């Protein structure tokens, strides 16, 4: 599917749309020592950390070039918390695509739904996404959006700059740093940890309090084809989930004073043959 690309306005600055997802806070997750399974109940949420870097990248581009930063998400109404945080951090406004019909989406309907929302927002120069989410780790939605919108993509960027109608991104790939350049509009995905996301400000929080900056859209608002969204529109299913059986380790812990503990440790490691005698 192809949407007409919108020409870049010279005077109004950059219009950027940052796609974010709300995920369980990674640091708060722990393994139950008895059941050896993940404790997920009551874990607080946060903006997917790479998406925070994408938001920061967009805010810096706005600082440099002017324009606006619009935040977009798809998910339950509880995601509003993250959209409000993004506004408090400096985003101008936000859209939440929320509908029961969207539940169970894999990356195909997710990219499709976000693309339709982006199309409805319109007039964009740059779409920014985090390189991947910490809860699904696919990295497929950003390039999927670029495919749907039929615009260029530059993924895994640790730095992004804009000059005139072109965007330049430095991609951190396995064997080095590769810089790509393309015309806007384009999709860029941002590397986790490449910048330090700013904190929410008091003015930002006041803007959130005043309200009216988060718009909700349903599937009908976007004229989404029910066959192309949610579980029905997802080519993949999770057929089953198996618990990983980790090798049963001896778990011998030395509590002795350092000199003794170290000596005991080196003895067992030599005995196991993992360090030379």
């Amino acid at each position, binding site marked *: 599917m192809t949407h007409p690309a919108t020409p870049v306005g010279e005077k109004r600055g950059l219009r950027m749309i940052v796609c974010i997802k709300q995920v369980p806070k990674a640091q708060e*997750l*722990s*393994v139950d*020592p008895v059941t*050896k399974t*993940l404790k997920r109940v009551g874990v607080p949420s946060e903006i997917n950390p790479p998406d925070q870097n994408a938001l920061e990248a967009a805010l810096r581009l706005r600082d440099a070039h002017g324009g606006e930063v619009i935040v977009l998400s798809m998910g339950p109404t509880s995601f509003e918390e993250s959209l409000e945080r993004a506004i408090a951090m400096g985003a101008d406004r936000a859209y939440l695509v929320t509908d029961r019909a969207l539940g169970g989406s*894999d990356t*195909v309907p997710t990219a499709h739904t976000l693309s339709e929302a982006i199309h409805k927002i319109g007039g964009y120069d740059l779409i920014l996404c985090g390189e991947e989410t910490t*809860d699904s*780790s*696919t*990295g*497929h939605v*950003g*390039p*999927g959006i*670029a*495919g*749907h919108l039929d615009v*260029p993509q*530059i*993924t*895994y960027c640790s730095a992004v700059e804009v000059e005139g109608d072109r965007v*330049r991104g430095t991609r*951190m*790939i396995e*064997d*080095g*740093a*590769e*810089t*790509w*350049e*393309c015309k806007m509009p384009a999709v860029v995905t941002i590397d986790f940890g490449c910048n330090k996301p700013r904190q929410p400000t008091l003015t930002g929080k006041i803007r959130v309090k005043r309200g009216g900056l988060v718009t909700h859209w349903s599937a009908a608002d976007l004229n989404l084809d029910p066959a192309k969204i949610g579980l029905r529109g997802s*080519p*993949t*299913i999770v*057929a*089953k*989930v*198996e618990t*990983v059986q*980790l090798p049963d380790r*001896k*778990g*011998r*812990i*030395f*509590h002795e004073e*350092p000199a*003794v*503990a*170290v*000596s005991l440790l*080196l*003895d067992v*490691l030599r005995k*196991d043959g*993992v*360090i030379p005698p």
Partner: protein
Amino acid sequence: MSGFAHEGVWVFIEARRGALRDVSVQLIGEARRIADRRRTVLSGVLPGWKVEGLARRAIEYGLDRVYLVENPRLETYLSRPFTKVMATLIRKYHPEIVLFGASKNGRDLGGRLHAVIDTGLAADCVRFDVTDEGYLDMIRPAFGGRSLAHIHCEKHRPQMASARMNVFRLPPRDPSRTGEIIRETVEITDADVDTRVVGFIETPRHDVSKIDDAKILVSGGYGLRDPENFAMLEELAALLGGAVSASRKPVDSGWVPKAVQVGQTGKTVRPDLYIAVGISGAVQHLAGMQESGKIVAINHDPKAAIFEIADYGIVGDLFQVVPELIRQLKASKAPPPVPEIPATTR
């Protein structure tokens, strides 16, 4: 689904700077197994320029057939031209399964392609199987690596997946193996070349591979408190003939480069010995090292999660334990050998 009979297993073959990427060769080995299970032909798609030699080499690693798409505009990887090549050939030949290596470029390509041709794509698989119904069972770590999700794509074709790097073993190369090379032409227009590469700074090969190749890893966490304290780990690693890696926090804090990060957002490692120093053992970190041969944890907190998966642990101050390790290892190496007689437990 369309009315075509979908048949054959395909792998995207990634050529980079005149060589086959390891991840592609690893994938050929695994895809060979799947194709044999499905009793079908294993083909590779190799877009590039002047890469016929690599096509032959890929056959020697186990392919039956290579679709070779040569064009100067395909010399280096770019998202749209490569997506066009894959989409065009998939629409022409209707493969049942298409696999990618989960390199950055492999994910970039797969992500765009699956949206364009509207089919499923399972990311970063660590195991594949074929179900009784004949579906590809695409197995990937679910959140935190504590469980494995089996992903199926029943109604859309091709079934597509990417394979995590360095999980599957390199298959042996058989120079006498023969296969078919089919030249394909896919027109790449000016408009298709919508991005250009304007710079490349190579990471020294040593830095790229050092933690992948190391038999012993000494890994530091936030407990080291200061980047300068990593010097102590370097010294320990050098004595053991290993390398230094880190958990996420020291990387986020800019103490050590991202290339040495172990964990869900970093690398998966399987050294013979993994020594975790000042690492509490967040689930995301464990996901990247839990398959190590032996795991040693050094932490002052006896309740730290890292002890849950350690073979051996020392509960103590790492600033005393690590220097002591260095001292005793040096002593055992230094001639004349002074036997270290441990005091009995008091």
